[in-house]
């Protein structure tokens, strides 16, 4: 597929959003918009896949748009193709879900126009080949998603979320702009092609890296720039949340990879230190935040932060290996990072769609009001369960594969000559393992409290299974989770051209290996075969089942729960999300959130109830953002006095300025 095809698809998406405005109020508009976006995303997905597999040489096109004397350049290479696949997979499933969802919610005047625009924006970022085009589409993407976040603007929280989001977004854009300014130089060579040729001094390169970490990191949700993410992602309609978490954060990853691996030239070793540290901290902090949530969608949003951290760990390792010229290892690490990018977009979209189904069915996002949904919405529950297992990095699903690869990459790190990295890599590995374990705990909580147990509110008892199309979208993603988990070799080989272009080497071809197992470095060193593990488990489980049902009894009797002899019919006696996370809060919360528990135990004979209060602090807000806002407010207040001076005072300012300038002039030369 030539690049023109992709651009035409994006143009069609923009047309679609205009049409959504013109046709507003018509009953059919939702179907048109979502159907159109579905078709276009599928087309884009197919085209990108074709490019990725056929490994066509990159081709570009320049349109006389944007910056006059530069024009706006577009280019499609393996990297863009891969990320196009990721994005459009997400958008296709989101559109499908939206198509189904529009039956529940007919008129979405504040969603429909911006949905295709958002898709177009993301696609354009991936195709852009000069700084201006990239930043313009980047900011356009942010704007469209902001509008979607503000779709339910009547709730004050959403408005606040939207505000924080757009301010952080423009902050990030500004950082990226500065980074590009450094790369382009004073003559304004904004084209990526020229940036690739030109080289910058190490100091400048370091500055660029820092700026890119801020710019792309604020969009991706690196701690401490993540604060907008858990506010904004849940505020949007669920399929948009899926897109924002599943796709938009990946666009940010793309920007990072494009600039740091492609444009910036040879890395210095300490870059990887920065990236690895940020990644590790982000992974653990993200999942710890998530554990403290009982809003389902916010929990998922915080898990996005965690997974972004994991991805950055992979990228950081790749940088380290590249800095010391170990292309094979770099290829392994980069493959791990990119594969996790793909995996995360799949299962995070799935999870958000599931949460959306729950939200539509019950009108509840708060897990404390849910429970027992597995009986009311079995299919959603099943799909969501698959997502939970996958994101918890458990075999035989896809999440495990990418984390396993990351571990393998870490196990190569002792060959690095730098002692700092020798020590840092295992530490980061520990953080990665910790975050994986915590994620498992968190999703036991998420699934257990939401879908298992007994219903906690009437709303849940009235809930019913969501529509077919949404189910279809979820199951497609769930199937993908399993396939990517048991046939990872295929995906690794698909990634080969991308990795090849970026670090100059690729992982050994996996398809040829017998039994379709994956071998990152050498057979004797490590190997994993998801397919076989899956078959083994299936086989032995069914074997056990058959054996027992045949040889022993298969009689079943249902009865009230035993519960140590004191069953309590009241559903509020179940473990809640908060109580489930209690022990973990006691272990980790003390240092992560300065969590303090206060037990107020009345004296014997007193009638008031005992009370346990927990207070937690979001340190990032308190130590980074509050001071900044306070400073701005303070200065604004102080300067505001200048609004109330009398004319005479204003005149004296003018005279003062005049005298000052005259003095300067008098003391000149």
């Amino acid at each position, binding site marked *: 597929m030539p690049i023109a095809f992709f651009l035409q698809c994006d143009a069609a998406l923009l047309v679609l959003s205009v049409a959504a405005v013109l046709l507003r109020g018509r009953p059919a508009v939702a179907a048109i918009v979502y159907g159109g976006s579905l078709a276009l995303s599928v087309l884009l997905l197919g085209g990108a896949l074709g490019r990725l597999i056929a490994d066509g040489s990159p081709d570009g096109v320049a349109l006389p748009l944007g910056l006059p004397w530069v024009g706006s350049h577009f280019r499609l290479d393996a990297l863009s193709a891969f990320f196009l696949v990721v994005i459009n997979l997400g958008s296709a499933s989101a559109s499908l879900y939206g198509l189904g969802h529009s039956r529940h919610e007919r008129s979405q005047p504040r969603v429909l126009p911006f949905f295709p625009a958002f898709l177009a924006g993301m696609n354009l970022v991936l195709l852009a080949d000069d700084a201006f085009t990239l930043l313009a589409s980047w900011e356009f993407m942010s704007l469209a998603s902001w509008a979607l976040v503000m779709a339910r603007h009547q709730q004050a929280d959403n408005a606040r979320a939207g505000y924080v989001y757009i301010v952080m977004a423009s902050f990030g854009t500004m950082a990226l702009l500065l980074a590009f300014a450094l790369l382009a130089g004073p003559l304004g060579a904004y084209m990526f092609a020229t940036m690739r040729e030109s080289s910058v001094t190490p100091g400048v390169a370091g500055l660029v890296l820092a700026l890119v970490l801020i710019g792309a990191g604020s969009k991706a949700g690196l701690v401490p720039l993540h604060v907008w993410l858990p506010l904004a992602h849940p505020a949007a309609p669920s399929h948009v949340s899926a897109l924002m978490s599943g796709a938009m954060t990946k666009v940010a990853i793309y920007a990072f990879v494009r600039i740091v691996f492609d444009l910036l030239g040879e890395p210095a070793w300490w870059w990887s230190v920065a990236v690895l540290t940020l990644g590790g901290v982000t992974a653990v902090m993200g999942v710890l935040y998530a554990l403290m949530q009982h809003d389902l969608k916010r929990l998922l949003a915080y898990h996005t932060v965690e997974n972004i951290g994991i991805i950055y760990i992979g990228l950081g390792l790749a940088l380290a290996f590249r800095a010391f010229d170990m292309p094979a290892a770099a290829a392994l690490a980069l493959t791990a990072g990119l594969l996790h990018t793909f995996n995360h977009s799949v299962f995070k979209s799935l999870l958000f769609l599931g949460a959306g189904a729950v939200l539509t069915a019950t009108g509840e996002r708060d897990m404390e009001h849910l429970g027992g949904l597995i009986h009311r919405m079995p299919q959603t529950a099943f799909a969501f369960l698959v997502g939970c297992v996958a994101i918890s990095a458990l075999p035989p699903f896809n999440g495990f594969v990418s984390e396993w690869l990351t571990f393998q990459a870490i196990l190569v790190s002792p060959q690095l000559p730098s002692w700092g990295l020798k020590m840092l890599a295992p530490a980061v590995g520990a953080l990665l393992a910790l975050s994986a374990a915590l994620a498992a705990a968190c999703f036991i909580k998420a699934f257990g409290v939401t879908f298992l147990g007994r219903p906690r509110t009437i709303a849940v008892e009235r809930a019913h299974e969501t529509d077919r199309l949404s189910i279809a979208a979820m199951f497609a993603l769930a199937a993908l989770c399993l396939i990517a988990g048991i046939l990872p070799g295929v995906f690794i080989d698909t990634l080969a051209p991308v990795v090849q272009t970026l670090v100059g080497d690729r992982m050994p071809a996996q398809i040829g290996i017998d039994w379709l197992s994956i071998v990152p470095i050498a057979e004797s060193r490590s190997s994993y075969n998801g397919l076989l593990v899956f078959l083994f488990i299936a086989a032995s489980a069914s074997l056990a089942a058959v054996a027992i049902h045949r040889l022993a009894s298969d009689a079943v009797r249902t009865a009230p729960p035993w519960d140590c002899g004191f069953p309590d019919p009241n559903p509020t006696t179940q473990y809640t999300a908060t109580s489930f996370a209690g022990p973990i809060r006691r272990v980790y919360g003390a240092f992560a959130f300065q969590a303090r528990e206060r037990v107020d135990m009345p004296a014997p004979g007193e009638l008031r109830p005992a009370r346990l209060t927990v207070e937690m602090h979001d340190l990032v807000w308190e130590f980074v953002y509050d001071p900044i806002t306070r400073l701005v407010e303070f200065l604004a207040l102080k300067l505001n006095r200048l*609004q109330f001076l*009398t004319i*005479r005072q204003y005149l004296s300012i003018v005279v003062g300025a*005049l*005298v000052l300038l*005259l003095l300067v*002039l*008098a003391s000149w030369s």
Partner: protein
Amino acid sequence: MKGIAFDLAHLLAGALVLVSFMLLYQNRLYSLLNVFALQAVVLTLSVAWQAYIQRAPHLYITAAIALAFKAIVIPIALHRIIARLGIHREVENVVGLGPTMIAAMALVALSMVVMLRVNAGADPLAREDLAFALSVVMLGLLMMVTRSNAVSQVVGFMSLENGLILAAAGAKGMPLVVEISVAFSVLVAFIVIGVFLFRIRERFDTVDIEALDRFQGARQ
């Protein structure tokens, strides 16, 4: 002829600066107006002298305007305004007299320094003239800033303008001086009318004291 021409022009310009100092020194409104009228007369003389030595008849017009307008019409108008609006008669300084004088000295010194940096290539007459003109301008500004009384601020503005006219007249063969002086007289007239119309009793700052109190709050 050259010598006397130069000296007389110099003398008149210097006199203008002196009168500006006198203006700053006044603390009675009526006397302030009288002094201002005096300054206008001096200005008229110096412009007329310039017209004579530059052989530039149109400058006589400017001189005439200055005389008629600034030395006669405006002071009378202001007298009436003071009487009509019952503005109390003494000028209250924001800054004490002493500091004002010191500031005035400093400003004059500054304008001298600035002007003398101008290389001597420029013809000395213009140069000296300009130095005095700048001083007058600065003193006028100083007056507007240090006096918190509408009329005295108007006077300050007008003496500033006197400085400008002086400079314009001193600039040999400068075109459009008449037009400019006319335009300026219009400006001044506007201000005076404004003072009268809007009943600006005390200060430029407000049209009406109560009004000011009322929307300090809304003024955000």
